[in-house]
């Protein structure tokens, strides 16, 4: 029901708005489909999941693209158009959550996790290498091991020729 009435509203209100104050400014520049798609790609389809407005074949998204075209023709910037849709339909129509409040955690939490991971790894490596210099290491020096690769190939050859 909600979607229905919203759709009706859109059909009636948008053209009215365009008529009232869109027309005088609309002659600035005709936006190309590519200009529209560039903005539409940053919005999510409101009715389906996992698809942006540029790629979505539904009627709703076609209307949204038309609206983006109108707004571009009025000389609105990309940011202004995104804000326009977010303000009317909610932040979940944006492809990436706005950088404020709780939504910041989408960026902050992974960054913190990676830092914690790096810290833990650094600490462990430090501890382990210390343990190894403290004598826990096995006796063979590095240079012998380095040619181990060649040694193993030769060893395998030996096995194989038997």
């Amino acid at each position, binding site marked *: 029901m909600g979607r229905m009435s919203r759709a009706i509203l859109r059909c009636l209100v948008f053209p009215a708005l365009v008529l009232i104050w869109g027309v005088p400014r609309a002659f600035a520049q005709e936006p190309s489909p590519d200009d529209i798609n560039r903005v539409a790609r*940053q919005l*999510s389809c409101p009715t389906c999941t*996992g698809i942006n407005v540029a790629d979505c074949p539904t009627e709703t998204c076609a209307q949204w693209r038309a609206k983006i075209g109108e707004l571009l023709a009025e000389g609105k910037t990309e940011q202004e158009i995104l804000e326009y849709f977010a303000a009317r339909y909610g932040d979940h129509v944006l*492809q990436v*959550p706005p950088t404020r409040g709780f939504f910041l955690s989408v960026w902050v939490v992974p960054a913190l996790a990676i830092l914690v991971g790096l810290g833990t790894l650094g600490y462990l490596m430090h501890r*382990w*290498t210390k343990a190894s210099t403290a004598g826990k290491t096995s006796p063979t020096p590095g240079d012998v*091991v380095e040619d181990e690769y060649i040694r193993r*190939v030769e060893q395998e050859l030996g096995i194989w020729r038997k």
Partner: protein
Amino acid sequence: MAADLGYVALLLAFVLSIFAALAAWWGEHRRTIELVLSARNAVLAVAGLLTLAIALELYLLLSSDFRVMYVAQVTNRAMPAFFKLTALWGGQAGSLLFWSWLMSLFAAVAVISSWQRTRILIPKVIVVTQLTLAFFLSLISGIWAPLASPLKVLGITAAAELMAEMERLTPFYQLVFTPVDGSGLNPLLRHWGMIIHPPLLYLGFVGFVIPFAFAVAALSTCQADDLWIRVIRRWTLVAWLFLSMGLLVGMWWAYGVLGWGGYWGWDPVENAALMPWLTGTAFLHSVIIQERRGMFKVWNMVLVMITYSLVIFGTFLTRSGVVSSVHAFAQSGVGPLFLGFVATTFVASVILLFARLDSLRSENALDSLVSREAIFLLNNLLFLAIFFVTFWGTIFPVVSELLAGEKAIVGPPFFNQVNGPLFGLLVLTMGIAPLMPWRRASSGKLARLVLWPILAGLATTLGLLVVPTLRQFVILPGTSLRIVPVTAFYGLLAFTLVVIGQEFWRGIRTRRRVTREPYLTALVNLVQHNRRRYGGYLVHLGVVMIALGVVGTNFFKVETQRNLAQDESFTITSPLTGIYTVTYVGLSTFLIAEDVQRTAATLRITREGELISLLQPAQDFFILQEQAMTIPAMRHSLAEDLYIILAGWEDGGATATFKAFVEPLVNWLWLGGLVFIFGTVVAMWPTQVEERRAAVAASASGHAVVTRS
């Protein structure tokens, strides 16, 4: 009749799987071999019963018995027999049955094949696999439905309704009436890619349960030495191979069928398959260190446990729709049950791990930060970081809805921005790792090994930046800022490529010094006698090719949309091959099947006035489902794809709208995928040497087991 029989088989399988778990547990506890034998036989019986259930379900699907609700949901009379059969995994109930069947077969094969070698681990392997299986069977055998009435009495009506719903999730659930026809399969899924994609993915998912079962068995019997690692090595590779193939085929399907010019959308369902692959790949690497150096034992256990949880979580994500909204989660009893199961098994395994920490002491310490071990640790950190970013982005919509009361979408830009650089670093560790010797590197030796790769990397980066004819490939209007990281990444790919080539060359040279055989023979023999190592390098080669395609399509993709009248044309400029001119010739509509109407546009593609191709992008309209499907038309080449879709048309085709993409290097991705799979198969194939070693090791450990018990 067949439906009733199938349901009975399902119920029996459920009961027997519980029995097998209990008998194996008790038999081990009491040291009663008869009970363990009985559990083993029950495992085989469960596999047999589920095979019967699958056969009956296939029979029902094929005979269009629409009284069975599942058959009516996923098929209709008009569908060809082949699609009716593959509809087995086209819906929730069927795919859970299919999952369970695969699980029962894997468990049976694992128990039988390891019976001689690792009998001490078998009882707990039975317990873990059969409990997992019992959980899945409980979802589709209506076991939870009787819980509805006591819950209702207790006043928990919402939960009671969910449980009552579970009755209908049985793939053999029968309606009280017989519908005239079924609803049929979603047209998007009628493609060979979508037919083999789910089975591949499920084989991968189920395959990872076996390593987990052995890990838990090893922990709980205090046999956490290298025995379990040896047993699961091939299982892990098999599971990983199927998961990789599932991912690649899924990407290929998305590219060829969904018609948006991409192959990966960071969709929750895609992420669900990627996450266990990431942790599984981390495990495949770090397990090598445990084998060689006896280190990271705890960490390997953790990775196996996470991977198992992600496999269950992934099945749950793809099957419950929870990520689209919290509300979808509460609409079916499957969601809460799955989450409960994932949480329980994860917590239980972590507790077990802590209880057994003592048996997992490292045998060696890290000798140097400049060593193979240290690089592997970094590799693990990166895989885990990418996993965590993906996990967080996937669950974020639900988290924000729960905690902030407002839903948010986390789309591809987030994942690309955060995971992109992490993947770049991963390729870097991939390039360096083969140069690093175990334990510690000496600078002289390292310098000699690193010389040619570094020269190749620098030459590539500088060449792309400086030489004008090459420079035009990486400079596009408006992309100048990205040129530095991109050219650096191409340099990195060249570096890695030379490292891999050098490894092969060193091996061949050494062989030739000893045997004087021809180069090709030396190469074949080299790979044959150390398949894991060189198979691994081939996989890395595949990754380099895949990375080439991913960078090409992500940074240099060109896209344009035009509305054309007949005989009008537009141009699209490729960064690699010049200007394409696309001319709209005309539109035609015809039937390609009884219920499918195709509208195809004909386009003339010319380059410098010369006709190079005729393309026919189309839209298929499925009359029964009232659903349209976009059929992209492509011109393939090693340099790029020209990819065009028909977005719409007016006045019977007087004008039409097209979207055209130039997808640079995209075919390197698919070719790299083939190399990747080939490399995995090479690494997986048993070598004679390895088998001899395994036999020796098995007899030795068998001896150890006897003396210990």
